[in-house]
Structure formats: structure tokens, C-alpha cells
């Protein structure tokens, strides 16, 4: 059985006790993303802190409906990006996208475990193409919200 390789304990823990869940104020941008295949959805807010130089991810809050993979991914993602400068957090996001593509592109550079931390638990998901979108839903929402928040800075 390969179920255990997909549903790692870390994933099930985050699913049962999600971190940073619930919508909070203040925020700089809010997005709503859906997975049209299954109807999973996430509303996600990003608050950035102006530090004089590069903005830092001050808070990520979200409300979501979905499977264990999408819920756990949102929880792990918020853990990983909160407190990081935006560019560093984006690097983690890019590494996660690479991890999800690792099965489709086995010759690419291996994912950086130091960057991904708990998100490495999703490696098993990459073997199931139908579930990759579940794992990516919150990450894509976060990237979108952050990009919008950054645009707002320049207004």
C-alpha cells in the first residue's frame, strides 16, 4: 500500500489541526481560488509589513474547504512563509512547485529539503497527478495575493 507515502503523519496532523486558519484583519490583499475539478476552494489574505527595505510576510490567514491534502498544504504553507521576506518566501513556493513536478520531470534538480522543511512531506503527492492541484491550491492563492499586495504598495 502506498497510501501511507501520500498521507504522511505530518500531513494528517496539519489536516486535523490546521495552523493560521481563519480570516484575520488587517490585510493588504484577499483572493479566492477554486479547483474547478473538485470544487475545493480557499479564500486567502496576505498582510505585508513594510520594513523600509523588502516587505516581510506579516500574516497569512485563510478559510478553506477541501480535502486533507489541500487543507494540510495551506497550513504548512502559512507556517513556512509567515515571517519571511517576500522574495525568500517566493523561493520556498518555487521549490514546492518543483517538488510537485518532480515525478513528471525526474531529471530536474532535486527539491531543497532545507528550504521546504515540513512541505517535503508532500513528496508522495507528486506521484498522483490528480492530487497535485490539491497541494498547490493554497500556494497559488498565496502567490496571487502577495503579488496583488505588492502592486498595492506602488499605488
Amino acid at each position, binding site marked *: *500500500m*502506498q*497510501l501511507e507515502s501520500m*498521507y504522511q503523519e505530518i500531513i494528517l496532523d496539519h489536516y486535523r489541526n490546521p495552523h493560521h486558519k481563519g480570516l484575520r484583519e488587517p490585510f493588504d490583499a484577499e483572493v479566492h481560488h477554486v479547483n474547478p475539478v*473538485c*470544487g475545493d476552494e480557499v479564500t486567502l489574505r496576505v498582510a505585508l509589513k513594510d520594513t523600509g527595505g523588502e516587505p516581510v510576510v506579516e500574516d497569512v490567514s485563510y478559510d478553506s474547504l*477541501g*480535502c486533507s*491534502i489541500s487543507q494540510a498544504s495551506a497550513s504548512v504553507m502559512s507556517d513556512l512563509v509567515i515571517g519571511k521576506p517576500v522574495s525568500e518566501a517566493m523561493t520556498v513556493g518555487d521549490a514546492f512547485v518543483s517538488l510537485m513536478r518532480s515525478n513528471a520531470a525526474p531529471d530536474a534538480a532535486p527539491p531543497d529539503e532545507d528550504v521546504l522543511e515540513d512541505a517535503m512531506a508532500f513528496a508522495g503527492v507528486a506521484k498522483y497527478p490528480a*492530487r497535485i492541484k490539491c497541494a498547490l491550491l493554497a500556494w497559488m492563492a498565496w502567490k496571487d495575493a502577495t503579488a496583488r499586495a505588492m502592486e498595492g504598495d506602488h499605488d
Partner: protein
Amino acid sequence: MTTTAHLNSASLDVDAIRADFPILSRAVRNGRPLAYLDSGATSQKPRQVLDAEREFYERHNSAAHRGTHLLGEEATEVYEGARERIAAFLGATPGEIVFTKNATEAINLVAYAMTGSVGPGDEILITEMEHHANLVPWQQLCQRTGATLRWFKVTPDGRLDTDPSPITERTKLVALTHQSNVTGVIPPVAEIARLAHEAGAVVLADGAQSVPHQPVDVATLGADFLAFSGHKMLGPYGIGVLYGKRALLESLPPFLTGGSMIEVVRMEETTFLPPPQRFEPGVPPVAQAAGLAAAAGYLSGLGMANVAAHEESLTAHALDALREIPGVRILGPDTTSGRGGSVAFEVHGIHPHDVGQVLDELGVAARTGHHCAWPLHRALGVQASTRATFYVYNTHAEVDALADAVRYAKKFFGV
């Protein structure tokens, strides 16, 4: 328990049927046998259908309805022979059978062709239990024309709420499913068609889930149009059917235009052939039509009443087996009365995607998600569901495998 009462299906020789479907003997994940419970999405294809397509390509391949050579004549015979076979399958005449790409295109054909015949003040009536294919085209028609979209609601147990009837003198068309692809509910199409006709409206039935699974006679059904897909009834992808009453088809303008559907073309204007050719532009899909005709022949050989009886027996077994698992809620009716072989359910505490993953790991192929019926799921108070659908080749052992897999999923996720 009554489960054992329907452990055997007297109506079909399932072992013999399964031998006609090569895919059913392959192994899936972990070397497990395949329990294919997703025929509502697409059915498997028997050798007879594959052979019919291969024979056409190997012996007769040519463009139908053009050319004077022998192969062209044979291709035309195969194509028009398929039309006759489908007409006989439905109790219709060949001139009422339009080949389309699938049920979705058949419905879009009617929705586009009606663009000039409805406008502000007119109402298009659908239902809350429609597949998106019988919902979005009508929304679009209303947006194009200024007509108003209205709908029958569903009752909490998933039946169509027909009292009071929303049919009025403003209703121009009623479009409704003949069998829900989620709950299996079979709405009273004939009764609704009678009311609609009294009000002067035409009726389109979405037969994607009914024509493959129960005897359908267009005169008894009472609908003016009936749309369905070949690939859900043992046939190939890429071909579907629009049945339409002859006089109505003659009154409709073309939808897709081009070659094959014209009478005379001048640079300034074109006249069109009568139906069904008016609605079949381009070189016809003859191999697919041959496959579809073989599928209809295969089903007729089994007898559609036997097909329906077999599925009812599997459905009763599935409802019994799932009902006794704590935390499982059947969406829609939990008896076999007035419903077909689609059983959608939720498992308390486990998202359908996760249920489906466990099922897959155990070799059970079921559908998870909203099954292209998002408004129905909303009406029934769920985001998504897990769905098992049955067909001629399914066994009672596969129903047991489904129930065992659901129990395993509960254990795995600790709910």
C-alpha cells in the same frame, strides 16, 4: 438484512459479458483487480464495438455522402445504417436522429438554434439537478436573448419539486435530465412534458444517464428533444445523438455550418439541406457511428429491461451495504424507487477526494467531486461527494469491494 436477496442477478450473464471487455481483466494499483464503478463518467467498450470501428477502417474507410466510388458508397451505408439502428433503439425514425459530438453538443445545438425564437418575457425552465451540460447552455441562451432562466428546485431527498409547477404561458422550453448523474433520480419527464406542451413549450430531455441504462422509447418519454452520448453506452468517444421531433428539427436553423449541410452555395448566400443533414456539417464520423451502432446492438441483445433490472439489483445492494456503515450519508433517495444506478454519498469526516484515494488504492474506481452538478450539491448541502455508478459488467462482489473500501477509509483516517 435483505442484502443476500439480491446477491445474484438473474437478468444478465455477467461472466459472459465481462469476457467481452478486455480492460476489465487488467490489474490496477498494487496488482489489484479493477472494480470499475465509474460508468456514469464513461463506460467501458466491448470487443464488438472495437471490432466494428476496426472493420470500418480496415475495409470501408472513406468519406460518407460524397464521391462516387465503391468505398464512399459503403461508408454512406455504414453511416446511414447506424442512424437507422439508433432510431430503432429509441422508437424514432432515422430522419429524427442527428449525430453530434456528444450530449453536450446536442444540447448546445438546440440552445443556439433557438436564439432567434426566444426573447425578453420568455422563460427557459431547467432544474436544480442538471449536469452543467444541461444548465450552462441555457444560461448562455438567456444572456444572448434577454429570456429569463427559471428552475424546478429539488426536495431535501433529491427528488424534483414539481408542486407548484413553475411552468407558465411564458415558458418556451423545459430542459431537464431524464436521470440524475449524481442521485440517480428519474424525474417524471412524461408528466412534465404533458404540462409543458399544454403551455405551448417544447421539452428537451438530457438522456446521457438514461438511454444507456433503461429502455427509452421517445413516444412514451414525451420529450421533443433527447440528447445523449455514445461513450456512456458502450460506444466510442466523439459521437452523440440529438433526437428531435421531425417538425421541430425542420423549423430550426443550423448551428454549426460548412460542407455536407448545404443545398446551394453562392457567394452571397446559402440554402441548407433538410434535417438531419442540416445539423451535420463536415465529413461525418463514420467509424464512431459504426461503433455506436454496434453498442446499441450489444445492448439490444442483452435487452434494456434486463440491463435496468441488473442495475437495480446492484443499486439495492449498494444502498444496503453503504447504509449500514456509520457516518455514510446517501445523497438523494435511499431506495431503488424512481431512481437509476448512480449512488452518491458522503462519509462523515473524510473529504470525497480522500475517500476516492483510498478506493483507488484498493482497485475501486469511483468518481469524486461535484460530478459537473455543482448546484445540486449545493442544494443537498454538500461541497462534493463520492459516486459509484453501475453497468452491465458490474458484479455484486464489486459492490462489496466498494463497501469494504469505504470501511477501510474510515479506519485509515480514524473517523
